[in-house]
Every structure is written in structure tokens, then in C-alpha cells.
């Protein structure tokens, strides 16, 4: 188990005053992993990250990094880097001095600082900006300075708070590539916090979905995307048709509905993405309420005895008229089986 548990959170409980933000959180992260904390605002993801950085001391529980208990180690003595959402560059210092800040505190020889900062700025492509003040840089450039400032410290873990949220679409792609490159080149363990499932899916090796201060699901992007285990996760990753299951029957509309296939015994709910809904045949009937065209597909909103259903079809097929009644099916074998509902 040597590659397991590089960073361990054990029964971690975090609170602001009397407000508990995170309760009894257990998580272990392997060396070199790129992990995303995904969840809506207020779910405790940023709080957890700040406690890993040492900016918030846990009410109880432990944080272990590389075999050492760092729960009570203060923020300035942990080998943890943090790229803030606001970047938090020091406006009174040049780009060079920002990146050199931590190295100077370490009292490294000037020549070593010089070469590390130069290399750090070069790797993020900002060599020629070293004499500028942060205020003269664009948002994307500021973020790369913040990244370089953390990376020159050679942290054991690099934390990133919403690294892509303040960037426009083009820069977002650039930064995504940048982060993957940094991780590949340095092998640093990275954790980033995001509320955007797309970011988490495309960037992370593993995703930790959080809700109300607890972990809802941990898994690979494929797990999370295809096999959500709770109603919340299913909803969060785009399953639009979600129903509770009770006694092997679907709870929807006016009453329980028998299902054709067999379900695992602990199934609490079923969820379908719009494109998993079969249109044109099946046991159910629905009226087309509205349609929207999105290039390659058409999405329909159906009024059905089960409630509103969203379905999607290839745009190459003929459009279905609003007001017409069509048959449809919710194939059980395609559905995501939810263990938690509510």
C-alpha cells in the first residue's frame, strides 16, 4: 500500500464558530494524483481545501501528509501550495518578487532564488513580464504567476481554488492544458476545487463530489458521469429524468409503476439522461410540450403521466410536432441505479 494514502484526511470536522462546514470527512489521496473536489457552493469543498493548507484548524480529526501528522502544523510550515481563486498576488511586489516571496523566506542563496524564479516564470511563459507589477497583467497571466509562485516552492501537494472559473473560454482551455503539463512534468499531487462538472470531468483522475459538508461520491470521471450513486450526483452531472424506486416499482406521477427489468436489491432510484429515453415506441405515452434544436440533437419536453420527461434525439431524424402524442420508454438496463435518494 505504499502508493496509497499520500494525503489522508481522517474524521475531519471543520467549523466556523458554531457552524459546522464539514463533518467526519475521510479521504485518502495517492501521490501524484489529480483530484477534483466537486460540489455546489457551500458544500465544504473550499473549507476542506483551506484546512489542508493549514488556514483553518480542524475542530477534530487529523490530516496526514507523506506519513507525518500535520494537523497542528501551521500554514507556513507545511509543504502545501495554494493557488487562490483571486490569485492573491501581492500588488506591491513585481512579478519576480511575487514568485521569489516564499524562496526568500526560506533564506535560499540569491543565485538559487534567481535561477528558480527565472525557471518558474519561463515554464509558465512569463519570462519577459518579471519586472511588471501584477496590476499590469491580464487575469490569465496573473493566474500563471500565482501558479509559478506556488510551484517554485516545490510543494508536496498543490491546491487550486476554482482554477478555471475566472477565465474566458479560450484561456480556460489553455490553463487546463497548463495544469496537466505541470502535473505531468513535476508529478506533484494536485487537488482542485470546482463547482463545474465539466472542469472536474476533463481534468481530474478522480473526483470527490461533496454535498452539505460530506462526501457524496468518490470515483473516476467515468464513474461519476455514468454511474452516479445518488440523486444529487445524478442531477449534478446531467441526468434530467430522476425517479425514486420503492419495492421494485418506479414512484412517479399518480402511482407506482412496474418496471420491465430486474433491479439490484438496494436500488433507491433510477435516472436517465435525455438521450437514454427511447422515443417512438414503449409502454408510456406523452405529449410533446416543447422542442429545442441544438445542432446535432433535438431535445423534447414531454408531458407524461410520470411527470415531465426530457428526451433527446438525433437531429437527423424528423422533428416531432408540438402537441402530438408519442410513445416512449425508459429502458431500465440503460438507467443509472441510485443507492441514495433524497
Amino acid at each position, binding site marked *: 500500500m505504499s502508493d496509497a494514502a499520500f494525503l489522508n484526511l481522517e474524521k475531519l470536522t471543520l467549523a466556523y*464558530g458554531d457552524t459546522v462546514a464539514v463533518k467526519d470527512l475521510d479521504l485518502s489521496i495517492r501521490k501524484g494524483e489529480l483530484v477534483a473536489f466537486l460540489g455546489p457552493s457551500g458544500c465544504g469543498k473550499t473549507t476542506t481545501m*483551506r484546512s489542508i493548507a493549514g488556514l483553518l484548524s480542524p475542530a477534530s480529526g487529523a490530516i496526514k501528509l507523506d506519513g507525518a501528522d500535520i494537523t497542528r502544523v501551521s500554514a507556513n510550515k507545511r509543504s502545501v501550495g*495554494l493557488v*487562490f481563486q483571486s490569485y*492573491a498576488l501581492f500588488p506591491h511586489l513585481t512579478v519576480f518578487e511575487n514568485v521569489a*516571496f516564499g524562496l526568500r*523566506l526560506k533564506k535560499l542563496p540569491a543565485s538559487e532564488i534567481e535561477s528558480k524564479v527565472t525557471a518558474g516564470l519561463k515554464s509558465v511563459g512569463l519570462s519577459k513580464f518579471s519586472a511588471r507589477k501584477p496590476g499590469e497583467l491580464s487575469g490569465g497571466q496573473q493566474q500563471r504567476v500565482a501558479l509559478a509562485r506556488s510551484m517554485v516552492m516545490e510543494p508536496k501537494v498543490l491546491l487550486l481554488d476554482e482554477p478555471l472559473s475566472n477565465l474566458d473560454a479560450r484561456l480556460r482551455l489553455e490553463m487546463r492544458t497548463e495544469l496537466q503539463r505541470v502535473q505531468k512534468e513535476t508529478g506533484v499531487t494536485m487537488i482542485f476545487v470546482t463547482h463545474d462538472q465539466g472542469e472536474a470531468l476533463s481534468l481530474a483522475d478522480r473526483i470527490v463530489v461533496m454535498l452539505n459538508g460530506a462526501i457524496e461520491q468518490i470515483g473516476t470521471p467515468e464513474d461519476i458521469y455514468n454511474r452516479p450513486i445518488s440523486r444529487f450526483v445524478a442531477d449534478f452531472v446531467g441526468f434530467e429524468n430522476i425517479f425514486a424506486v420503492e419495492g421494485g416499482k418506479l414512484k412517479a406521477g399518480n402511482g407506482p409503476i412496474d418496471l420491465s427489468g430486474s433491479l439490484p436489491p438496494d436500488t433507491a432510484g433510477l435516472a436517465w439522461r435525455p438521450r437514454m429515453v427511447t422515443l417512438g415506441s414503449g409502454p408510456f405515452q406523452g405529449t410533446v410540450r416543447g422542442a429545442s434544436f441544438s445542432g446535432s440533437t433535438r431535445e423534447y419536453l414531454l408531458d407524461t403521466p410520470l411527470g415531465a420527461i426530457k428526451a433527446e434525439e438525433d437531429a437527423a431524424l424528423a422533428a416531432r410536432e408540438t402537441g402530438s402524442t408519442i410513445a416512449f420508454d425508459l429502458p431500465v438496463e440503460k438507467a443509472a441505479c441510485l443507492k441514495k435518494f433524497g
Partner: protein
Amino acid sequence: MFQNRAEALALALPAAVFAAIVFLVPVVILLAEGFRSADSWSLSAYTTFFSDPLNRTVFLRTFRLGLMVTAVSAVIGYAAAFAIVNLSPRNKGQMIGLVVLPLMISSVARTYAWIVILGRTGIVNQALQLVGLSDEPIRFLFTETAVFIGLLQLFLPLMILSLISALENMPKDAIPAARVLGANWFQVFFKVILPLTKEGLVIGGTLVFTGSLTAYITPAILGGSKVLMLETLLYQRVTVANDFVAASVIAFILIVMSFAANLLLKRLATARNKR
């Protein structure tokens, strides 16, 4: 932006002319008086003033107390402002209210309280005798210490308020960023907080320094004639000796010191903005 000059002047001039007649002109004449001697311009009033050792003592004391009050209020101000800024918004509002409150209370009333506290039978003396630290009442009133305490209490709120707004204008997360990069609290203060709040410190410092120089009530009540400051000396020169020339000299010194502090403030503030 409206362009009509006549309209603009009609709106602004009454106030300016009023301030000029009631303030500027009489004060300028008063100041000029100090540079006149036997119908010609001369600095003799100044050489006479500074040749008197008492006047020199008073001048240096005023300057020294001003600096001390400013320095101590800066230290306390940072601690208090930092504590207040980190409160929840609700508590922060209440605390700021408590800091503003004394500014609204008559300085006669505020200074008078120190007589009750520092007097011969005041609380401090009673406490000292009770604990056995002294057998006889110690004289606190009419000492520099009393004036210092009174001035500090009078002007500390101005420093705290300036530093609160400076701390609030600091970039979010600058302090945690420095922590994560390895700075201890001492380094966080000197490498991040101080440079980023310099402007607020300068504004607060100027207010406190100028206020201390030009306060009258506090040195009058707590210093009396034993601990004269420039303002009380001026009053004494006029009322006791009818010496308007000395008054003019003191006035000029006070104004120069106030303006110097003000200019320094503007200088430092713009130096920062230019970057």
C-alpha cells in the same frame, strides 16, 4: 460634467469667498505679524522665541508627544483594526460604531474623565495604594504621561478607522497566500500587511499627529501650566502677557507642522498611486 463656467462659479464662489474672509485673510494677517518688526520684514520674533529655553522645551515636547501618540496609536491601531476586520459583518458594524462613538462625545467630557481616573484620589492611585505599591498618592495629573494618555484616547479612533479601511482594501487572500508561502505572522505583517496598508497608516498618522499638535483641551486640563504644549503656550502668551507676536510665531509653527504632515500624506499617497 457640465460645462457652464459662470454657473459653476456662482455655485462654488460663495463658500470659497466666505472661507477666505472668515479664515484665510485674518489668519494670513496674523501670521504676517510674526514676520514684522519695526515696519520691516524680519525673523527677529522667531529668534527671540527660540532663544527662550522654555519655548524650546515646549516646542520639542509638542513634537515629541505628537510623534509618541502617533506611534503608539499605530501599534494599537493595527491590532484593533485587524481584530475588527476579522469579525463577522454584524459584529464588525457594532465595533466600528463603538470606535466612532467617542469621536462624537465632547472632548471636554472625555478629558475630564481622566481627572477622575488619574487624580490624587483617582482610581489609579486608590488601586496602587490598595495593592501596596505606593504609600502616597502619585501625581499623574499635570504630567506628560497624563497628556499622552489623554491625547491617545482622543485620537486613537481616527487611526483605527483609517487602518480598518486600509485593511479592508487589501487584496483578498493576500495574508493566507503569504502564510502558505511560508511567512510567519511577523513576516506577514512586515512583508505584506504593512506595505499594503501604508496609505491608511499615513492618513491615520497625519490625522493623529496633527490632532495631537493642535489639541487644546487635553493639555490644558491634564497638563495645565506645568506641561505646556504649543497650543496652551499660545493661549498663555496672549491672555497672560498680551504677547501677540509670540502667538503669531507659535501659530506659524503649528500651521507649518500641520501642513508638513498633510503634504507628507499627499506625497506618500500619490507615490503609491503612480505605480
